[in-house]
C-alpha cells in the first residue's frame, strides 16, 4: 500500500498547518522534500506560501518540480494551494466567497458561495477557461479554483478556512483513497 498524501516541503513559510489539518481529519499525510517519497505517495499536496518566484526556484533546486509534473501526468491526485501558471497582481487578502463554474467532486460537501481564506495577492488567469472550477469576485471575478482530471488547485487556503476548508481537504483525501484502492 502506498503512503497516502505527500505534502511537499520546499523550504518556504508555514506548511505545518496543512499537515495538521490533514491529521485533524484522520488522514495519513506527511511532509517531505524527497522526490522518491513524492513518487511513492498516493497523492501530492503542494502548499504555496511566500513569493512565487522563490517558490519555483526552490522546487527546481530540490529537483521536485520534475517529479511532481511527472507524477501528475501519470494521473496521481494533486492538490495545489495558492499556486498558478500565470500570475497577475491583485489585492485579495482576506475572506472571500467561491462560486462554482464546474464543481469538482472533492467539493461535493461544500455549498456554492462558501467563504475561504485568501492570503496571496496573486491569481491565475488560465488560458484554457475549461479548467476554471470556481471564481471569486474582487472588483472583478477572478479564478480561485481550477480543476482538470486529477489536478485541483485553489487560490485560497483550505487549511486556514476553518470548517469549510477542512471539508475540501476531506474531499481530496477521499479522492486519493479511491485512487489507491
Amino acid at each position, binding site marked *: 500500500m502506498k503512503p497516502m498524501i505527500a505534502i511537499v516541503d520546499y523550504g518556504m*513559510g*508555514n506548511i*505545518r*498547518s496543512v499537515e*495538521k*489539518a490533514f491529521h*485533524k481529519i484522520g488522514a495519513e499525510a506527511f511532509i517531505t522534500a524527497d522526490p522518491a517519497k513524492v513518487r511513492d505517495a498516493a497523492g501530492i499536496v503542494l502548499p504555496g*506560501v*511566500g*513569493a512565487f518566484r522563490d517558490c519555483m526556484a526552490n522546487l527546481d533546486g530540490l529537483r521536485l518540480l520534475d517529479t511532481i509534473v511527472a507524477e501528475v501526468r501519470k494521473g496521481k491526485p494533486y492538490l495545489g494551494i495558492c499556486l498558478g501558471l500565470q500570475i497577475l497582481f491583485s*489585492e*485579495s*487578502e*482576506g*475572506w*472571500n*466567497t467561491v462560486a462554482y463554474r464546474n464543481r469538482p467532486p472533492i467539493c461535493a460537501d461544500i455549498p456554492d458561495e462558501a*467563504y475561504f*481564506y485568501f*492570503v*496571496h*495577492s496573486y491569481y491565475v488567469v488560465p488560458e484554457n477557461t475549461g479548467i476554471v472550477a470556481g471564481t471569486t*469576485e*474582487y472588483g472583478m471575478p477572478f479564478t480561485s479554483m481550477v480543476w482538470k482530471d486529477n489536478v485541483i488547485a485553489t487560490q485560497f487556503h483550505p*487549511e*486556514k*478556512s*476553518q470548517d469549510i*476548508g*477542512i471539508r475540501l481537504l476531506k474531499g481530496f483525501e477521499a479522492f486519493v483513497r479511491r485512487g489507491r484502492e
Partner: protein
Amino acid sequence: MLAKRIIPCLDVKNGRVVKGVSFENLRDAGDPVENAVFYDQQGADELVFLDITASHEKRKVILDVVQKTAEDVFMPLTVGGGIKSLDDIRDLLNAGCDKVSINTTAVKDPHFISKAAERFGSQCIVVAIDAKRVADNMDDATGELWSSDAAMADVVLSLPVSGQIWAISTHGGRRMKRINAIAWARKMEALGAGEILLTSMDKDGTKDGYDIALTRAVSEAVTIPVIASGGAGTLEHLYEGLTAGKADAALAASIFHYREFTVRESKEYLRARGVPVRL
C-alpha cells in the same frame, strides 16, 4: 466580495492569556488554545496574539503557544510583540502562525520592514501603529526626535502642528515620537508592509469607539488593508470603524472577552446593517 473581518485579540504573557474569555465553559481561562478554539467556534475571521511577555528568557514560550494553537485551530493567526529579528519571524512562521505584527522594531529601523517583506512576503508582514493625537503645544521636549535618515525625512513631524495630527507613540502611549502617523503608514506600505494594525492610544481601553477620523485618514492614505483597533465598546463602534472609518477589519478585545457580545452576534449585527461579513 471580500468580507470585512472581525478579529479578537488576546494578550499573552509568559504563555498565558491575561484578561481571557470569561466564560464558564472554559476550563482554563488562561489557556491560549482554549481561548482560540472558543473564538474559532464563534466564527472569528482571524486571531491576534499580542505577546506582552517582559523577560527576554521567556520569549520562546510564545512559539509553544502558537504551535499548540495551530494544531487545533484552522484560521489565520497573527502574533505581535517583541519581534526584533528576521529569525524571530522565521521561528514564528515555522511554529504555525500566518502573520507577524511589528511595532517598535519598525520605529527603530524602518528598513527592517523591507527586509522582512522581501524574505517572507508582504502577506505576512503586519505593521502595528500606535497613534496618538498631537496637542498643539507639542514641542521639542515632549516629541522625541527620531531619525536622521534622509529616506525618512518625509515622515518626520515638523513643529508646531495645527489641526488634526497624529504622531507615533511608544511605551504604551507614554512617549511620543516626532513621526506623522499617516505618513508613517504610507511609508510602511512603500517598504512592503502587507497590512496596518492601527491602534488609537487615545481611545484604547476607553470603550467609547474607535478614533474614526484617524482610521479613515490612514485607510484613505494606503491601499493595503487597515485593521481598526482601540476603543471598541459596542457593536455600533465596530460598524463605524468599518464604514465611516473605512477599515477592512475591526479588532476588539474586551467586548468579546467579557462576553458582552459574541463574534457571531457582532457579525449578524453588521450583516443586518449591510456590511459584508462571513457568517
